[in-house]
């Protein structure tokens, strides 16, 4: 046995797969990772860890990992691949993508990622170096994951804001400046199971241990909702009505923060008028929450000295998710909970360093205004939805997939897919995506394991590295972290390294100034006054000092505006809850509620046939979306895809616990194992997404049994939002249960 060295690093994406941020210690013996443990010196997790991080050795050295570049040798879907060298693989990508660019224009190649992880930085770097504006979370209908919330915040507040769990302070809970939120509204999330959007879920439990009381907005009973002071068991998709109803109570009863509103809020009267359209009885009828509970909750939140809202992806997945996020953000605005201890703290990337562009401003800073303006002209969906033109840099996933089919207004010929299992994962109308993407001339996929998407589509596969195998940096809010390579597995390379090499081939002049990816990291990290190695030497993390990057009450201190004056980073210097950007873009400047596209009220006939609301997309602590089903320590604890069914409903359908059943609607059916549970209401069923069986045959038609289990094949599309952002129907699709008859699937 050799000597074991212990290296601190930060877990971000491939491996744990998540949005990351945990400090982890890597135990390395003879060049091999032998153990992973939480890093007690890291302020994010303070030594704690999760099942996926602790199972990393099984992930890194899994026998099914792709460790060499591969080229498809049979027909697409036959599952026949042969190893090739990196040079050969990159030559082929350069030649095939170069040919598409010459013949059709760079916009004819789309750059596809999954959820917002560490891919946003390298994939935009490659897409813009190649010249394509089409960066897209393909299949994620309406980009219904955080972008709607980001859009609503940026256009009203001029910033982003998150629940304050002391994460911006080195000493965390011990910092005397911090106070625990009196109340936390946990809105559409189960924090113990998830660390989304630069947020460590268990921080909410930390706050509970320090006295915070919970208001849970959740259609299900969860560990957290059953410990909440108030549990609003909302009808899925009606969150906008609830937010407006609460806003109305707070304004009508004059329990809002009058000083803050007078000084810092623009458009209060207009919001007051709009909120008045949502009296409590109407909201109670829409949301199925008792009126008294809505009133009590609104009062508890508004009367608290400081209160926070921790919100989840179901908000984006409401019809007009952007408008729903806008409505919720009005709650923290009118109650003056912005940038105060234990409130909604303004969140900026540490030192202003961008690892992953969250706004148009950041893209312009990274790539220049000319390029971004030019890109806007051709970005798919920018002519249909103004938000796609004006906010961030995404192409519309719903329009993109249609355009692959129609070739209108220009053809889509190629796809660069980076750690995104579109077909087995995020794609609503998954079969439509499968059929359309089959028509592409060239598909390169960067991934770690074969999955239904690599199997069905890949022409070239490039093996990616996990976090212990790569150099990278992270600055998703705070702290700024370095991630340093400590082991090598096969020929795997980091996403940054892969994209950097290929970007150089497409834009040799533009990339001259960086010899290595570390040079590039150093340039990006310049605002911090530290290089990558400086940060490593400091222990791998650093937080912003007093100034724009550190709370609290920065709007009073002149830290938010370019002119250095007090106020918010908006034209008026106030929080523009009457959203002038939306108005300018032809959208409703005020928040509103839209009924889900499928429901008893909007589709009564469909409801008669399919009377159960299917909630999908909840998180498991063991798996990240469609990953990790091949990791023995994880799969053992959740071996099968299940559906939660209320006992009364199970009785009605004559279903016993553990029985395999179908969930079905007009789009098809999927298989699930029944779990009879009080977690769901009788008219709801809940099932996890991302299921396929890595142990099953991968070649078509099987594709790891994806069509037995992929729940998103029965989720309709396109998205249901006027803005284009939000409205994926992952939480509101109507289904029924069916017994699997003998000889059935």
């Amino acid at each position, binding site marked *: 046995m050799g000597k074991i060295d212990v290296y601190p690093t930060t877990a971000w994406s491939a491996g744990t797969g998540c949005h990351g941020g945990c400090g982890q210690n890597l135990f390395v013996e003879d060049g091999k990772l032998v153990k992973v443990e939480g890093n007690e010196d890291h302020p994010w997790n303070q030594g704690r860890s999760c*099942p996926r991080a602790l199972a990393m050795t099984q992930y890194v050295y899994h026998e099914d990992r792709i460790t060499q570049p591969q080229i498809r040798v049979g027909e697409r879907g036959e599952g026949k691949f042969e190893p090739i060298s990196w040079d050969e693989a990159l030559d082929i990508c350069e030649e095939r993508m170069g040919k598409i660019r010459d013949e059709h224009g760079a916009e004819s190649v789309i750059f596809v990622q999954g959820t917002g992880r560490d891919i946003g930085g390298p994939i935009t770097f490659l897409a813009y170096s190649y010249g394509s504006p089409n960066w897209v979370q393909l299949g994620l209908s309406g980009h219904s994951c955080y972008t709607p919330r980001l859009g609503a915040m940026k256009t009203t507040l001029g910033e982003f804001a998150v629940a304050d769990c002391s994460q911006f302070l080195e000493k965390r809970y011990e910092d005397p400046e911090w106070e625990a939120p009196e109340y936390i509204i946990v809105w559409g999330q189960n924090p113990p199971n998830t660390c989304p959007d630069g947020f460590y879920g268990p921080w909410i439990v930390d706050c509970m241990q320090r006295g915070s009381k919970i208001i849970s907005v959740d259609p299900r009973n969860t560990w957290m909702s059953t410990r909440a002071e108030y549990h609003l068991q909302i009808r899925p998709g009606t969150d906008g009505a609830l937010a407006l109803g609460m806003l109305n109570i707070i304004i009508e009863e004059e329990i809002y923060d009058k000083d803050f509103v007078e000084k810092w809020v623009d458009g209060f009267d207009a919001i007051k008028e709009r909120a008045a359209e949502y009296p409590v009885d109407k909201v109670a009828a829409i949301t199925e929450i008792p009126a008294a509970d809505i009133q009590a909750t609104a009062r508890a939140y508004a009367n608290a000295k400081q209160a926070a809202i921790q919100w989840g992806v179901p908000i984006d997945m409401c019809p007009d998710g952007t408008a729903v996020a806008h409505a919720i953000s009005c709650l923290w605005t009118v109650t003056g909970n912005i940038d105060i201890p234990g409130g909604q703290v303004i969140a900026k990337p540490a030192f202003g360093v961008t690892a992953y562009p969250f706004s148009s401003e950041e893209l312009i800073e990274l790539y220049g205004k000319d390029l971004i303006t030019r890109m806007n002209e051709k970005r798919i969906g920018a002519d249909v939805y103004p938000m796609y033109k004006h906010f961030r840099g995404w192409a519309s996933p719903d329009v993109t997939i249609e355009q692959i089919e129609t070739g209108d207004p220009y053809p889509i010929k190629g796809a660069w897919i980076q750690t995104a299992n579109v077909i087995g994962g995020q794609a609503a109308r998954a079969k439509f995506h499968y059929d359309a993407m089959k028509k592409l001339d060239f598909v390169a996929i960067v991934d770690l394991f074969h999955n239904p998407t690599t199997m069905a589509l890949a022409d070239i596969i490039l093996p990616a590295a996990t976090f212990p195998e790569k150099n990278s940096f992270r600055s998703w809010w705070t702290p700024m972290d370095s991630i340093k390579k400590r082991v090598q597995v096969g020929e795997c390379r980091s996403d940054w390294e892969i994209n950097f090499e290929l970007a150089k081939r497409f834009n040799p002049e533009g990339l001259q100034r960086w010899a290595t990816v570390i040079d590039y990291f150093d340039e990006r990290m310049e605002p911090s006054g530290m290089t990558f190695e400086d940060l490593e030497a400091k222990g791998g993390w650093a937080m912003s000092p007093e100034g724009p990057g550190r709370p609290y009450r920065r709007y009073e201190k002149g830290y938010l505006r370019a002119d250095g004056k007090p106020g918010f980073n908006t034209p008026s210097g106030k929080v523009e809850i009457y959203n002038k950007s939306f108005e300018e873009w032809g959208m409703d400047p005020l928040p509103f509620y839209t009924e889900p596209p499928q429901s008893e009220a909007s589709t009564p006939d469909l409801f008669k046939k399919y009377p159960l609301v299917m909630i999908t997309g909840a998180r498991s602590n063991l798996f990240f979306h469609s990953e990790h089903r091949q990791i023995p320590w994880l799969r053992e604890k959740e071996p099968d895809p299940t559906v939660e069914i209320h006992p009364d409903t199970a009785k009605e359908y004559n279903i016993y616990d553990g029985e395999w059943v179908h969930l079905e609607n007009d789009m098809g059916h999927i298989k699930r194992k029944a779990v009879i549970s009080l977690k769901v209401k009788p008219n709801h069923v809940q099932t996890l997404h991302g299921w396929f069986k890595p142990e099953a045959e991968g070649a078509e038609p099987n594709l790891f049994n994806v069509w037995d289990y992929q729940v998103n094949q029965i989720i309709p599309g396109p998205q249901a939002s006027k803005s284009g952002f939000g409205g994926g129907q992952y939480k509101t699709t109507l289904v029924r249960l069916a017994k699997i008859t003998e000889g059935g699937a």
Partner: protein
Amino acid sequence: MAKYSILIDTDFCTGCHTCEVACQQEHDYPVGLNGIKVTEYEYKLASGKVKIDCIPFLTDLCDLCMGRQADGERPSCVKHCQTACMYFGLTSDLAIEAASRPRAVLYTHTPK
């Protein structure tokens, strides 16, 4: 006598499985073997409200991470617990600690 114990504040166990994988990694236990196991129970209170409780229990495969103790480290499950609701120490100390909590279990444990 059981000199050492593990205290679990059962109000804050969310059933996240971290302790289980921590134990498996530390001891290189294969699938099917574990020194700690989490259970979840959902039930209805007299008020009709649903409650969900979680709690881990120790098995004969738990050795209180003797090897880690020698290095001054806490058992892996205790260290990694996502909600920091587990404590390791002398039984006599933890018994006092347990008494100050509304709901807790104190596992006395003597490795076999």
